[in-house]
């Protein structure tokens, strides 16, 4: 795992700011296949995740990886975030982490 650079907390619409850089986001898994996951971002956008899903994926999945485009991530690390994760809170955190309090995060 690349720990040399921080990864920005993003939702679907913030991804475009970090193309080519490391990001972390949480998606609601809509579909998964060998080597890829389709998810819904916390602000209701579709995100394509390249990389195999965990063997038993839960409703919410955290993905850390490189933002390849404004709606796709090449995943380095995937972590199950369970079925009771609150996407709205996460979405608000993403806004704070890229706005007023950006200096706390990246």
């Amino acid at each position, binding site marked *: *795992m690349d*720990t040399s650079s*921080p*990864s*920005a*907390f993003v939702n679907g619409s913030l991804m475009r700011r970090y193309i080519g850089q490391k990001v*972390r986001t949480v998606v609601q898994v809509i579909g998964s296949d060998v080597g890829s996951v389709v998810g819904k971002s916390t602000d209701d956008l579709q995100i394509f995740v390249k990389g195999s899903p965990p063997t038993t994926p839960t409703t*919410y999945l*955290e993905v*850390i990886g490189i933002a390849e485009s404004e709606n796709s991530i090449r995943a380095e*690390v995937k*972590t199950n*975030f*369970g079925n*009771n*994760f*609150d996407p709205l*809170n*996460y979405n*608000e*955190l993403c806004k*704070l*982490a890229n706005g007023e*309090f950006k*200096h*706390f*995060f*990246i």
Partner: protein
Amino acid sequence: MYAGEFDGNAAFAGGGFMPSQSTAQAPESSSAFKNRDARTLLPLTLKQLNSVSTNGESNFSIDGVDINTVAIVGRVSRMENRITQVDFVIDDGTGCVECIRWCHERQETEEMEAVRLGMYVRLHGHLKSFQGKRSMNVFSVRPVTDFNEIVHHFTECIYVHMYNTKPRGGSVTQATETPMPQMPSTTPTPARPFQTGPSNQFSNQFNDPMHGVRQTVLNYLNRPIHLRSEAGVHCDVIARELRIPLQQVKEALEQLSNDGCVYSTSDETCFKSTANA
């Protein structure tokens, strides 16, 4: 004034053979922070933790608050088990920090056995700096099972920063009208740094006309003489002493009782504060 205080610096300084930093050098200017209220458990992002100012190997401060113990939440990105300790690296997405957890007791070993590489954990520890490099001497590691805790941690970091940097009034009148995370007391409350602990149970009470009455009644019951009394104080007495209509006092007591701030003693008319005597 703060004689006989608990020295957290010495207690949490690690291997147990560290000289006490606070007794070795106690500059006059920082003595105001050396009271019990300043012994904070400070939630920080690792970006914050790696950028805090330092004036030595283990004296750090951020937002004007001395850092004693910090709480961080992140992923275990590297881990190495040794005979007496576990070395690991925590990555919370904002930065990384090297951590050491000494495992002398069985309970400590068991706690670390539950931690796996790639897991999200919440940890509490003492921040150290050696040759400019930050590390954590950890004394509690707990795997995160509800991932909302991660979001909560970061929002708490923001909240605590706001709390510690916003201007605060030190006068009695302001202190009683400002929602403080601590139990209110009758003595003038100096501006206190944030402490994780009893959560802000007095939020949403700004626009409530009963808030003032509740506060006054609680302050009255928090007077040392009433805290010491076994029987508590009769509501008639409270109403008479405070010159507040009995009905309002009863309402305030009922609400305070629901909030867990007071309890009735011998019968439903005598009340005592839950604060420690």
